[in-house]
């Protein structure tokens, strides 16, 4: 992208100021990426060894019923035509109807995405708030007991199946201690009680001013979010530690110390400042992972989010839902990438 930009400066093909050209280049690269994503997901949908027609009509259907559904899905047209219709529909925000829920895929996603978004956001906050300081301290006190503890925490996070940990958490905090709400996003008392504005129950219950509903929703989200947060904590703290170690062994740190600078200032104002940029990428990546990869957590906690939505859709050959979900997840990835690029520019003096 950088090369492209310098080239256009030499021989401007559009009478636009550099910032506008930069935006244009970014936008067109997003468009190309999205088109590629659409193409790949479309192809995967067509070559999967699952028959989407059978998924609709069921195994008892007659030939005639099968053919009617086949035509209704437009499968009798050529692949190119199908792809063309698919892209034009998607551009209008129309992903078609889900076979499983009998609703528009876009309205399904509008329903399930906020659930995942809420869960992942609290999870990543948890991971950052605990993971970053832990990584920094582990690096500073390298080899000490606190470093060992951080290592064990990360190791458990890497190796323990999330499925097992989730069930254990449910058993302890819900089953035995009764500190948190059980599976699902809400208790039955609050089911359908809070009007849906954003789709995020924590936010919606605040908007409705219902403190009881907020507490109920919080007691349901805290455990799965902590679990997800724990997994990102493991990753974030390890990465923070290694970034910090690299900085702490650099010459400028030695110089700072020789100059008699306090250890606090050396660590936080010198070394930490220099790893911010790398950290942003790490956090953005694990956030993106939480947004699309929390399938098991969603299943254990009966959390109706996009991860379990895409998975069940995939297993049932509900291709419209799979494609729609994938496109949305892809979009989230791209947005997070752009966002971390922007932050990069803000924080990295060299990019100025």
């Amino acid at each position: 992208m950088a090369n492209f930009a310098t080239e256009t400066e030499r021989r401007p093909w559009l009478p636009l100021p550099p910032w506008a050209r930069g935006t244009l280049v970014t936008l067109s690269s997003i468009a190309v990426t999205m088109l590629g994503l659409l193409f790949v997901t479309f192809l995967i949908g067509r070559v999967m060894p699952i028959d989407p027609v059978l998924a609709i009509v069921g195994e008892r259907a007659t030939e005639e019923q099968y053919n009617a559904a086949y035509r209704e899905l437009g499968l009798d047209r050529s692949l190119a035509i199908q792809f063309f219709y698919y892209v034009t529909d998607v551009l209008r925000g129309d992903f078609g109807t889900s076979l499983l829920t009998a609703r528009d895929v876009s309205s399904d996603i509008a329903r399930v995405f906020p659930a995942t978004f809420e869960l992942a956001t609290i999870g990543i906050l948890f991971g950052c708030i605990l993971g970053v300081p832990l990584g920094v301290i582990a690096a500073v006190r390298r080899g000490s007991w606190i470093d060992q503890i951080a290592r064990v925490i990360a190791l458990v996070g890497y190796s323990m199946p999330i499925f097992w940990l989730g069930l254990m958490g449910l058993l302890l905090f819900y089953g035995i201690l009764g500190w948190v709400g059980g599976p699902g996003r809400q208790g039955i008392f609050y089911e359908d009680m809070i009007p849906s504005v954003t789709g995020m129950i924590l936010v919606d219950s605040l908007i409705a001013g219902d403190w009881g509903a907020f507490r109920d929703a919080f007691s349901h989200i805290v455990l799965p979010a902590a679990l997800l947060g724990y997994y990102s904590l493991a990753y974030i703290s390890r990465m923070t530690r290694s970034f910090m170690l690299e900085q702490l062994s650099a010459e400028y740190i030695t110089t700072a110390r020789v100059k008699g600078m306090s250890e606090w200032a050396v660590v936080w104002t010198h070394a930490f400042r220099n790893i911010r940029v790398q950290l942003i990428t790490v956090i953005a990546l694990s956030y993106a992972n939480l947004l699309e990869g929390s399938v098991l957590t969603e299943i254990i906690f009966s959390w109706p989010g996009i991860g379990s939505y895409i998975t069940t859709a995939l297993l049932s050959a509900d291709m419209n839902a799979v494609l729609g979900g994938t496109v949305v997840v892809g979009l989230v990835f791209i947005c997070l990438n752009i966002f971390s690029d922007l932050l990069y520019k803000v924080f990295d003096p060299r990019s100025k």
Partner: protein
Amino acid sequence: MKTIHTLLGTAALGLAIGLTPMATMAETPANMLVIANRIDDITTLDPAQSFEFAGADVIRNIYGKLVNFDPSDLDAGYQPDLAESWTVSEDGRTITFTMREGVTFQSGNPVRAEDAAFSLKRAVILNKTPSFIITQFGFTPENVDETIKVDGNTLSITTDKRYATSFVLNCLTATIGAIVDKELVMANEVDGDMGNNWLTTNSAGSGPYSLASWKPKESVTLSANPSYYGGEPEMKRVIVRHVQESATQRLMLERGDIDVARDLTPSDVDGLAGVEGVEVLREMRGRLMYVSFNQKHPELSKPQVRQALKYLIDYDGMENSFLKNWYVGHQNFLPKTYLGAVDENPFSLDVEKAKALLAEAGVENLELTVGVREAQERLEIAQSLQNTFAQAGITLNLEVGTGKQILGKYRARELDIYLGAWGPDYPDPHTNAGTFAYNPDNSDEANATGLLAWRNGWDTGGLTEKVAAAVVEGDTDKRAEMYHEIQAEFRDTAPFAIMFQLIEQAGMADNVEGLSLGGAITSVAYWDVTK
């Protein structure tokens, strides 16, 4: 991997629950029934289209039918519901129903013979998958106006030939026999779809409950119908929550956050033993587990080989180990409790006999592939088969896939062996006789994918005619006798080894009374439930 996770989780949970006293139980509200169940198979709530278990559960509680089962006495067979009584014409082809007076839909509209006729015609005209349950009586979109007629408060239906009256009425108790509110449904018609799109997510019935909401893969909420003719149900709200994992369902039950857990694995059921305030409800369901041998395979089509394979299955071993209390041995195509069901299970593991039969057929070093869905108990059954087949020198390879993948191949007659389950479509013996032992045209072109006999390339050798004769026999005792004979021949000659019948085990709070899961013949009923 998932299986390992589940096992690990279950084992650890069992251990931990065993060691720790549970916190005091919370309680669901006294007038509300809360159920955990896997409900992600619901794709529509239109009774003319719905053909899944969880959908049938919902529809049974929302809609009245002409005739219906009494949940407190399923053995009594069909009973009057929206039809108060009926008469059969002398030639046996026309049944005339007299409608119950003074019954209203949840909308307030009266339930008329007109609505009943509309509902049946609608199912025929829409021609969705389950429509065969009523179109098998000769109703077509072209002739419904002549064959389904309304005269004041009576409705008459005329079949294309004489059938056993019990057969026709049994079919009308199926989901597709639900009576919808014509005025309400047609008010929501779009592009001539007879309200199909609208009914997918809405209800228009006269049953004990109405649909409050259906959030796919999340929950179904039903509200009691205060004007239900049988009296308003005691449970004012029924919430069915989608909970995927057995261990999670069990935990919620033990916490008192739910009243009923419907998808418990046998180990979780065992774990509930001795837990205070919880009991286990066991009901025999209609689902059969079977293996079948494709007759297009040159070796499998030899009669001795089919017989040999039936002797190479460790029925007792499986029933007494991983299937314990979950499936019970049953080697006939009619589930127990069906008219004509028999309890003869002649096959057991006999490797020597099987070897002799294989030698007689001149078969050696046979290598076969079995298609199996990736569900824990099915994989275990497949592994057991692999083991016992090997004892007679047969190599059995497992082809594991999702339900849809394996089913696609099975329907295309491409599998050597299929391991699967079959549930009856309606509570009449013809449902299974017609799929397992009926195949009028065995050619590839016939494409009779709905018939299991066809899927296995089996020309039934005379059973097809016997099945056709049994379904038109008016004398019920004689009819039952005919099914006994068909099944005896089937056990001997068919390329099917029927192995087990399902027992549903639901964990339940012990204050819940009157819950019926529907047995082998119908779906769950909530309206008699008290707490």
